[in-house]
């Protein structure tokens, strides 16, 4: 996995909540048995018309957002199916960072990202950043005034800089384990296998039929 430290690039707005992984990569593209070739089919049903030409209505087809590296969207992004293909499509399209808002509604936290999706992102070098709703509203408003503007996401410093007007630098929180993994591009399996002796010892006493 490629380490991720600082990402500078165009920030593209996808103004929808609850974008599910069926939308991110429709099922006809799950049939591939390799790990590549998903990028061109990202958001397929929204991105292309029936005749296969790009739908000019869809935001990523707007010239201003060509080659975007950062996506800003609304809450519960990546819900639904566990398909990791969704993250492969996002990463292979060229996105390295996704930003989404979280909010608290009568004690109920509505997250920026669905659980499995967020996990899958971390395993594929894609950074997911949760900000407050007003911060995300601010980013959408700024992009509307400056379509095609760039942003810099600095993972070590946990900061986002929007390169327009004199917009403030936004700080973000991140799980330290995920931060470390992204910074180093760590492979999880290698890490687990350093505990080989413990796994073997565990297996000696653990009955998987009756795990008492």
């Amino acid at each position, binding site marked *: 996995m490629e380490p991720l430290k600082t990402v500078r690039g165009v920030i593209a707005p996808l103004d929808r909540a609850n974008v599910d992984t069926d939308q991110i990569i429709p099922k006809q593209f799950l049939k591939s048995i390799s*790990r590549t070739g998903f990028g061109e089919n990202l958001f397929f049903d929204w991105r292309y018309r029936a005749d296969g030409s790009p739908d000019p209505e869809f935001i990523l087809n707007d010239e201003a957002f060509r080659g975007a590296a950062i996506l800003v969207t609304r809450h519960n992004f990546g819900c639904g199916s566990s398909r990791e293909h969704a993250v492969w499509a996002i990463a292979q399209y060229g996105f390295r960072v996704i930003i989404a808002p979280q909010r608290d509604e009568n004690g109920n936290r509505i*997250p920026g990202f669905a659980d499995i999706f967020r996990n899958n992102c971390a395993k594929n070098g894609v950074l997911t950043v949760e900000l407050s709703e007003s911060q995300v509203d601010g980013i959408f408003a700024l992009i509307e005034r400056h379509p095609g503007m760039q942003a810099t996401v600095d993972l070590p410093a946990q900061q986002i800089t929007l390169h327009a007007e004199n917009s403030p630098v936004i700080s973000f929180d991140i799980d330290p384990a995920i931060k470390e993994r992204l910074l180093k591009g760590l492979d999880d399996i290698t890490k687990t296998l350093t505990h080989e002796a413990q796994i073997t010892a565990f297996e000696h006493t653990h009955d998987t039929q009756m795990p008492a």
Partner: protein
Amino acid sequence: MPKTLFEKIWERHRVTGFEDGTTLLYIDRHLVHEVTSPQAFEGLRLAGRKVRRPELTFATLDHNVPTENRHEITDPVSRAQVDALTRNCREFGITLFDLDDERQGIVHIIGPELGITLPGTTIVCGDSHTSTHGAFGALAYGIGTSEVEHVLATQCLPQARPKTFRVTFEGRLQPGVTAKDMVLKLIGTIGTAGGTGYVLEYCGPAIRALSMEGRMTVCNMTIEAGARAGMVAPDDTTIEYICRTPRPYAPRGEALEKAIAFWRTLPGDEGAVFDRELTIDASEIAPQVTWGTSPGMVTDVSARVPFPDQVPGYSPADVEKSLEYMGLAPGTPITDIAVDTVFIGSCTNGRIEDLRAAAAIFQGRRVAEGVRVLVVPGSQQVLRQAEAEGLDRIFREAGAQWRQSGCSMCLAMNPDKLEPGQRCASTSNRNFEGRQGKDGRTHLVSPQMAAAAAVTGHFVDIRSWQKG
């Protein structure tokens, strides 16, 4: 300290902890299907790794299987995926229930059927509906393909500990109201992200009164509420299900006696504390019908399609987009919505009890003019059972199509699909845009409600309809 069911299982499977607070969790059962596994096996091969415990890994073909003639996979890409899993299982020494195997079926149907799913175990699969297996008092959840590779290589998974959430269903369901309606009601109440970060435990008299099939339906759709796992503590119903017929992978004889004694220790202790609690009165639940493109966009069959500003948890713009996609006008009574397709099946409602419930509605009746009805058993075992009971005849005589087992029209990765603009009453679990076919429109309902819609051509309130 009193412990919850989840805590007991979690602690028994803890291999070690990491500095960052995550736990290395041991996995007892790893289920594999053809869609989310090829890249994981490819990864193993590239790294020169083996499958650590092939005997704890079970594979089946389900998503791509044609349900009319399972041996005629004409789509070359489907074929490639099926062949890849067959090759991978042979190379890595994994049991595969292939298309010739009488045990084949949807992964979440065959696990319980074959006794692979047992109380107190940890179960993962590269499929979000792995939550189904929690009905047995197992900790079961869906994982991504990188995690599939991780489990294949190490039989473990590093996991952050989720929080716990108890959902209590008080009271009794009204006649005609089912487990499907309970879980749709829950999703409508807490929203599709309401359970994110939690493991749900279902409790209360209305849960205890459910059969294992019903409990599986509830746990299955837990992921639609954002929670990766849902669980029900094992009880007599659980043990009776496991002992009912010979289940090849379940313990037998003395081992079974010991296992039962262990399973009895699993329910949460008196006074165990949950991070969050919710109580729902089951007696107030009406049959549910989704009207939008998210499982949380759901209402009572007796209600109307809402106006965009009336839906808690969704912005008016999201609701407008959904209604446009669904071709529905706000204010339309749900019972005025006409369907042209009915799908009865999937890992949510493709078990024998679901087919019996649907058959009871079809018995002596005919499918409405112009409605295409697919009845698809969740496994070959369900198929044989249904045929032994004569259910297939009831379906055929009513004018429905009786198919072979597979995921079928739950997700349109095989020949069973909706055409653009078609409207389907479906017993599956997701009403996302395009889920059942591009521009297809899905309404999620229980098997009874789907069968009644097939007969009348539109939604009906099963409670009054059955009496009349």
